[in-house]
């Protein structure tokens, strides 16, 4: 409760900037579907999606201002999920 990070309030300016960036990236997601990239299309979509979720987690979910332990915990979870997806894709790619 006495944790100062809990009281950290983001300015409207910053929040709007993040929001606009997210909109721009959404537009980018749609745009890459129009470009002929072959297999890289999936990677491009995934990369944009990762940046977007990173922004949401860092600013809207406050992770940028939380203690280090929380960030470690978050990354353990993300890393595990990436491992699960990676292992599954590995089979599909070489099947």
């Amino acid at each position: 409760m006495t944790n100062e990070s809990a009281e950290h309030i983001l300015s409207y300016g910053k929040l709007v900037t993040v929001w606009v960036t997210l909109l721009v990236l959404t537009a980018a997601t749609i745009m890459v579907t129009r470009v002929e990239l072959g297999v890289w299309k999936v990677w491009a979509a995934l990369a944009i999606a990762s940046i977007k979720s990173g922004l949401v987690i860092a600013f809207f979910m406050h992770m940028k201002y939380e203690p280090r332990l929380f960030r470690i915990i978050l990354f353990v979870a993300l890393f595990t999920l990436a491992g699960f997806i990676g292992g599954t894709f590995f089979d599909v790619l070489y099947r």
Partner: protein
Amino acid sequence: MSQETATAEGGFWSDSGKTGIGSWIFSTDHKRIGLMYLYCVLSFFMVGVLLGVLIRLELIAPGPTIVTAQTYNALFTVHGVVMIFLFIIPGIPASFGNLVLPIQLGARDVAFPRVNLFSWWLYVIGAVIVLVSLFTGGGAPDTGWTFYVPFSARTTTNVSLAVFGVFILGFSSILTGINFVTTIHRMRAPGMNWTRIPLFTWSLYATAWVQILATPIIAITLLLVVTERILGLGLFDPSRGGDPIMFQHMFWIYSHPAVYIMILPGMGVISDIIPVFSRKPIFGYKMIAFSSLAIAAAGSAVWGHHMYTSGMSDLGVMVFSFLTFLVAIPSAIKVFNWVSTMYKGSISLEAPMLFALSFILLFSIGGLSGLILGAASTDIHVHDTHFVVGHFHYVMFGGTGFAFFAAAHYWLPKYFGRRYEEKPAIIGWVLMFIGFNVLYFTMQVLGMEGMPRRYYDYLPEFARLNLVATVGSWIMVAGILIVLWNLWRGLLKGEPFTGNPWGGATLEWSIPTPPPTENFEEDPVVTHGPYDFKGAGVP
């Protein structure tokens, strides 16, 4: 429950002044919640045992014996679902974890007592849904506990409801995990630094992480099966353009880590019992604690070893086979450390220790047979045979099951303030141990000879060993009944149990018996390690 409240007295049984069923099912006291879990998981254990005995009875001779083929399919499915999701996954963490973990840390309760109660309620609701699914709709599920598609997407039995019940049970498991992780991070008493945490609680820490990270995957997977069944989506069913191997990936991404949800707490129990009954500090404390985390981490990367024959890519088979061998290392670290702890110790063979010792042997047999299965070249021959059934009963029952009984004999007297009799406990243990090996070792031999699993009938040449296995199941059940009856009678009416008769050095042995509602009269300050018997002042 009223009967227990009538006989067990003192401490948290009575000091709040509240009685009646409401003081239990709405209690946020971790000890009461732990006991409620205990009664539930034991009841389901008995249901599972009954179903198992029926399966063995059907297999006593070739051809139809006591049930129809369809009933047989339902029997092994429900046996698996009950034992896995209702007994062995919540078994040790939710019952003994709740009873012991906060006290071992020097805390008055878990971090979120109400979430704890909520998770018990989710468990009960999930269990009721699973039970209802057996008697409604198209009848009891017949898919096997693994719910493999495409069959589970097509069968007319009540798979959707059963799977939904398991979905709810998953949330119960996740909430317990979150509670334990938070409690261990935030609620430790002064002086309880990370290297003074008892190894049982350490094992629950690793377990809790797996519960939090892996359980959501099965939740999603099961929901997808339900949507496939109800909406007819083509996610997994190949005739609709789906990918059935995808289901196996998603299922085992949870269910292999889940076997570590089952075994890690059992290993923690053993790590706490062995030093006490050997009168020696644990050998390699840090390695045991670390190997729990290593097992949890490495165990999350080996799920593909259940799928060698599924049609997965050959390269995938090789990679998963290699990774599987890595898990054996931290498992072996633990076994070697337990044995080293006993070396030159002053060993007393009381009931908890006997169960712990048999754990080591049976788990080792199970783990080594796991290596035969982990090597893809040998697994292809014995996959889906009784060898696999023998393997996982050695690790799950010989391991976790025996650890559960070790924990019951070790800790329950502390919470009831009364003790069981030693002699029947030992007789029961001997019968369990003998019956267990007759039953499951025979299964491994049968599997090697080619007897498939989940089959209603078999070739005449398997008849003799099947008869042996069924007789083994009777011996084992006789042992289980004696052990449970002896515990029941002793804990309610036996001799008083006070002080620290085992001579444990962890915090639960420093408080009154039974523990008061608040656990500690004054906030403890921890000055010694969990196996520092001299520092704790026990002889």
